[in-house]
């Protein structure tokens, strides 16, 4: 029997009435089909207004799709929202915490609201405070916490009932570099515990570091989906290559200009960088010919595609 995906979107569409009074309607999600297996850290990438938050809210059952079906761990979110919501913890992009509560009171409130066994609540609150690295802050009012601590507290709230799925909308937004590092470590820990994490972020370098799979979303549509390495390899069919020469004197730019599949050459006296269309064998042939032509080649490397570069190439740059 095939394993049940943690999240499944089947032909999901969400239309909004425009709040600007215009006569147009906004299609925030357009026939989305997505499957996220258990245990993934899945990143959803896209510009503002791409429909990421709407998608996340539909997964949480906070918004209903205009059409289509959302399944969380096999449970239809529309038909049985409460059962689906038991399986997930959610952190919104912009959120507040109850500033007049103490840290432990905040977590205690949500532990009770999630109806955790009363005998286990104290232990659960303690454990969450420890995991979120808020030990010294247990009895402090939340109003006194830093932004990063509040963010960790928010994640603590989302995982207090130990859900298998954690949904985080721009969790790194507004955090300083140290807090971002701590957040990444925390997410890695949660992943190591077997949690599935569905995350959006503008900070693509962070996603690249922690995600196992990504989807690129724009104008309500998913442009690319897959394992992060696959997506990047697929997108890197036109790859960039750097050649280094041991000495100056060889006109690399002129020579490369005449080769098929080569474009975007940026040459210096001792090397060149260029885009190359072709497989590894074609690249090997190119390098062999270059050596035969007398170029003192001392190094060839394929440049790694960063997620940011990949995103900028996939994206058309349009927003709704």
């Amino acid at each position: 029997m095939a394993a049940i995906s943690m999240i499944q979107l089947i032909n999901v569409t969400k239309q909004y009435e425009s709040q600007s009074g215009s006569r147009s309607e906004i299609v925030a999600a357009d026939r989305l089909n997505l499957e996220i297996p258990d245990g993934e850290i899945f990143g959803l990438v896209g510009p503002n207004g791409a429909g990421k938050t709407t998608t996340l809210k539909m997964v949480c059952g906070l918004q209903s799709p205009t059409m289509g079906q959302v399944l969380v761990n096999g449970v239809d979110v529309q038909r049985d929202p409460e059962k689906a919501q038991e399986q997930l913890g959610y952190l919104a992009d912009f959120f507040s915490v109850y500033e007049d509560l103490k840290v432990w009171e905040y977590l205690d409130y949500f532990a009770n609201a999630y109806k955790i066994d009363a005998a286990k609540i104290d232990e659960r609150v303690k454990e969450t405070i420890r995991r979120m690295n808020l030990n010294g802050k247990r009895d402090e009012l939340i109003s006194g916490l830093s932004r990063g601590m509040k963010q960790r507290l928010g994640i603590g709230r989302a995982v207090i009932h130990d859900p298998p799925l954690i949904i985080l909308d721009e969790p790194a937004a507004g955090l300083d570099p140290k807090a971002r590092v701590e957040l990444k470590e925390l997410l890695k820990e949660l992943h190591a515990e077997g949690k599935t994490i569905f995350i959006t972020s503008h900070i693509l370098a962070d996603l690249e570091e922690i995600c196992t799979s990504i989807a690129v979303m724009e104008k309500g549509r998913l442009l690319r989906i897959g394992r992060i390495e696959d997506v990047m390899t697929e997108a890197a069919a036109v790859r960039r290559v750097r050649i280094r020469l041991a000495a100056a004197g060889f006109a690399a730019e002129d020579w490369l200009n005449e080769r098929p599949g080569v474009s975007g050459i940026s040459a210096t006296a001792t090397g060149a960088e260029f885009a190359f269309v072709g497989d590894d064998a074609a690249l090997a042939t190119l390098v062999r010919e270059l050596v035969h032509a007398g170029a003192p080649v001392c190094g060839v490397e394929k440049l790694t595609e960063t997620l940011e570069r990949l995103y900028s190439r996939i994206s058309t740059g349009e927003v709704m």
Partner: protein
Amino acid sequence: MKRVWNNPEIVRNARMQLRPGRIIAAVIVCLAISGTIWESIVHSDVAVSFGGLHKAGAVFAFTLNLQIAVLLIGGGILVLQSVRREKDLNTFDFQRLTRLSASELAVGKLFGAPVGAYFVTLCFWPVALIAAIRGQIPGWTVTEAYAILLLGCIAFHSLALLISVVERRDAGVIGILLYLAVLGVTLADSRMNSMIGRVNPFVAGGLLGPRWTDFSFKDSFFGIALPHFAVLMVLYLAFSTWFLLAAIRNIKREPSLYEVYSPVEAFGFALFLGLLLIGFYPWQANFYQGIVRINVPDFVLGAIRRVATPTQQAEQYLLGWIILLFAGMALVLLRNRERARRRLTIASSTAKVWWMALWPAPYIMLGVGLMGGSVIALIAHYRYEGEAWSLPLAVYDVAFAAVWLSRDAICLQWLNLRRAKMPLASAALYYLIFYGCTGTVFSALFLYAVPRSAALTAMLLPSPLFALNESNWGPAQKIWLAALLAQAIQVIFFWWLQQRRLLEFSQGKGSPTVLEQARLQNA
């Protein structure tokens, strides 16, 4: 369901509002105010006449009113903010995701949000109770007063909670004004038009002294004399239930799908209000004693008074209220584009579009018919035998009101399906302009002065209906029937327009994906 006092939402609010520092501050302030009240009344050399009570009794009455003000107004505003503030802070979604049921969340907010106001009310208890004992106010009276305070405030807080749940994010002030308006309206003495005393919790003061006469007045429901206290308890419980029902129905929903009541619930609520209206109407007082006491300014009903008998006045008065009731119900039932689409999707076929395009007319026809029929039956029962009153004319009145209201409701529903920022508000504005301008033009042309031309105006406006009697029915009978027919034709016209709009939805013009949904479901 967790026990009410273990409700996490109540515990959270108590923790936030009742920190030791705040408790101490509240106690000190309340003690100071209590002392000031006591000193200024009991130890005053000036004779105090607070509702005819002697000094200690006056302290109790004053403190009681203060407690009611704190809980009713202060607590009410806290409840009004309970959901709206969470939405503003973006924390409400987190509450929606918890395993708290809608009823637990609603009850938690109902009692949790005003927990500070409850505490302040309690802080005034010592001085109130000492004053009650020293003023020799009977224990049962004190109990009744606090029962009214508590249940009355719960009823009003339930209304505040409902407003807080369904109001738009940017409509906070409107919500507060609406709540205060309802408080103000219920302070008014309605006994000129009905056999029920004031229903605002401030009526608790009426238990105490001769100046407040509400409790010497027995309410009369269909002629049965009932103690006002008992009536209040039943009304508070009933309204708390109705308002909570609506709050619970919506509190965990997506805002774009808010629906104050289901159609059946809205219909039931309108019938309940109608029952109160006709049940507490002073049938016997008006008809057996030949007195009609309608407490409306003369410029509003002057024309009716001049032309109508007491029976006709009663009929027009009650019919006017029934129209208002079901117009309110129609507004509650109107669907926005999202909900209309959803209904279409559920129907999954265009076959039912013709029926959906009648929305919400069937409930209006049924409701106005039922309530209007009840009024006619009661008038037939209570009226003087010899008094001029025409049964067919009364039936015509009810039929006209039902058809006219259906016309406007279907038109508003059609307008509400347009793409616009606030389609319902702009539709209501169109109507206001239409009725205002048309009425002004008709008045300027003196069309209302002549029975035949007045009947002609009824093809567009219902106002001449309220002055219709046998004398102006006779010469214009055919025109009146034609006016009813014209209204019915307008119903058909707006039904056709709404049907076209719904077909656009189902054919995907307004929504490119709905058709695909239907196809998927059929596949």
